[in-house]
């Protein structure tokens, strides 16, 4: 009995030893020489492999960064400035801080604002719907509501709001990787600067129809009237093809355009709510009562 056990243990141990020697030799013989910095850079990457940087995954980004002479045009939107600083430290390069970006849905054609003119009975995919026709509302440019963007987001930053039928971006989760921008067949989602303390102003419409047509289709449409451009002090607004666009590099967040817009198509996000000051009449009344 013990003899069997001894033999078994000896044979298995010997086999293990022989195989590990073989594996060791093979690993040495077929080793691929790689710049060790690639591993170091990859270690600090977020590891999402989302492709937002334009490369095929985090390792490809690391290889590209190591091979490039400097970090111009190489930026990881998910890791942001923190990760880029670490990469720059490892490689001994300089890196410029980039303003954080966020995905912005430029459509306010909710069920309330934009009535449906037909019922779509096909597969629930924005790309399929866009390939077929202009959409189930009077606006040929607006959000189709099937949620391709939500499915494309690897970070769970998008969800469809069931009441409005529009996608909603969760700023805390959005990494500005650009997947939703690429997926949307109508080009509604745009990457814009997050802005100081998250404040930003943008036009929530991409409708290029003439004003009257756009307004008939959607109550919150941009009619291309140009009032916003006239009142902008930073020269940030251009009107092209009946549509207003705010350049986020030039915009200084004064919000004058928001008040001017007759349809409420311009939105200011994350601005602090200003409490109204009590009027002098009320203050006197209080004093007289006291």
């Amino acid at each position, binding site marked *: 009995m013990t003899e069997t056990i001894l033999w078994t243990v000896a044979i298995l141990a010997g086999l293990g030893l022989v195989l590990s020697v073989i594996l060791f030799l093979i690993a040495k013989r077929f080793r691929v020489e790689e710049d060790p910095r690639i591993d170091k850079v990859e270690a600090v990457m977020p590891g999402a492999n989302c492709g937002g940087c334009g490369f095929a995954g985090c390792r490809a980004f690391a290889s590209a960064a190591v091979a490039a002479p400097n970090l111009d045009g190489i930026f990881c939107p998910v890791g942001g400035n923190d990760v880029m600083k670490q990469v720059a430290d490892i490689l001994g390069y300089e890196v410029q801080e980039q303003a954080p970006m966020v995905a912005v849905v430029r459509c306010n054609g909710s069920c309330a604002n934009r009535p449906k003119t037909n019922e779509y009975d096909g597969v629930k995919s924005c790309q399929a719907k866009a390939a077929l026709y202009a959409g189930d509302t009077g606006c*040929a440019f607006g959000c189709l509501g099937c949620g391709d963007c939500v499915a494309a987001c690897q970070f769970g930053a998008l969800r469809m709001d069931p009441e409005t039928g529009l996608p909603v971006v969760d700023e805390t989760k959005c990494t500005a990787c650009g997947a939703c921008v690429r997926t949307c067949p109508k080009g509604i989602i745009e990457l814009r600067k997050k802005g100081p303390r998250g404040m930003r102003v943008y036009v929530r419409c991409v409708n290029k129809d003439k004003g009257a047509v756009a307004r008939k289709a959607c109550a919150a449409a941009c009619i291309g009237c140009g009032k916003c451009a006239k009142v902008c002090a930073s020269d940030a607004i251009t009107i092209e093809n009946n549509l207003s666009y705010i350049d986020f590099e030039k915009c200084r967040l004064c919000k004058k355009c928001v008040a001017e817009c007759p349809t409420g198509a311009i939105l200011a996000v994350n601005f602090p709510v200003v409490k109204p000051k009590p009027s002098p009449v009320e203050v006197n009344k209080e004093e007289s009562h006291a």
Partner: protein
Amino acid sequence: MRKLTFPMGGVHPDDTKYARDCAIEVLPLPPVVYVSVSQHLGAPAVPCVAVGDKVKAGQVVAEPGGFISAYVHSPVSGTVKSIGPRKDIAGRPVTHIEIVVEGDEWAEGIDLSPELVPEIPTDRAAVLEKIKAAGVVGLGGATFPTHVKLNPPPESKAECLIIDGAECEPYLTSDYRIMLERPDEIVVGTAIMQMVLGGCRAVLAVEDNKPEAIEALQASVARLGYANMEVAPLKCKYPQGSEKQLIDAVLGRQTKPGALPISVGAVVQNAGTALAVYEAVQKNKPLVTNVLTVTGDCLSGEKMHNYLFRAGMTLNYIAEYAGGVPADAAKIVSGGPMMGKPIANLDAATVKGSPAILYLSEEATRRGKEGPCIRCGRCADACPMGLEPFLLNRLAKAGDIEALKENEVLNCIECGCCLYSCPAYIPLLDRIRTAKVLAKKR
């Protein structure tokens, strides 16, 4: 006579040619028409009239915008009121020329008399010019400019001209009626096209559910006595009228993926196109009229019609004239139920190739809920191109463009047989069509 058919795939939807006995009626002129610059495959035409111009019926209002393009003519006489974007049946803005109708005066040189002109001209180049100048496009659905199709490069020789009289879609009867009522003109048109192609054989192929049309055409062919022309009955199967399947049935040859029919020596033209060629060459009449069928499963027989319309009348106008949209209509389709375009905007203008206004009831058309694929294989059995829609569906869901191309998704003719047959109501064609769009981009 032995009936021809294609060997691979196909389905047998119910015939439902309810409007077959409705003789073609000429629609009265509306107060205004909207002429689209995009009534053909290829580059949209460029308007060559200005607002305020007076135009006559048959006068050129837009010139070809490229090599694959066509002339567009005014279908009415009147004044140009505006030129600008207007929504097509898909709701997308396309440039239309709005013409307010005044009278019914036709341009110089156009012969509107009904006498048959059977003498075939012999100057090939002149005939092609006439066909081009008349804006003749294929009326089988694709609206490819006919003068381009009839002028293959010198190294490709046409061996057989096939006239597509199959009209394999259920409900549609416009081709049937023109074959029945104007067979002589179709035969002359065929002979003209034979001459242009260098004197090849011509086969007028008609499905066997139209025996009267087969007889009428056979009588015309016998009476007019052109050389090398015959009528061939086809077994009734969908999609018999598809170009590739038709060539397979008539000649027994299958075009390779991505290859044109001329690569196997065939040129296919719709019966309506043959009629348009006749009118263009023998009567100098440009293509501004066509026949469409108003039909469906939710309207009574009296409300069904085959109308001779002018390309530019709005669908609304035609629908109202026919008796209004039926109360039970859940979906309106421009064309047949298998491949027709859904009408999202009934106010859209008709174009040269508008085939039908089809009203479908809710039970006939509302899709069932999508279930899981049970691998029954009906879609692959039905596919006339030998593709495997269940596999293409899975690859399309995964977004694997490379594998889709390997499995020849670009070969799909979008006939709809797969979705029609799927017991789990999987939106196969939706996904395959979208995948094709994405595959073409890369």
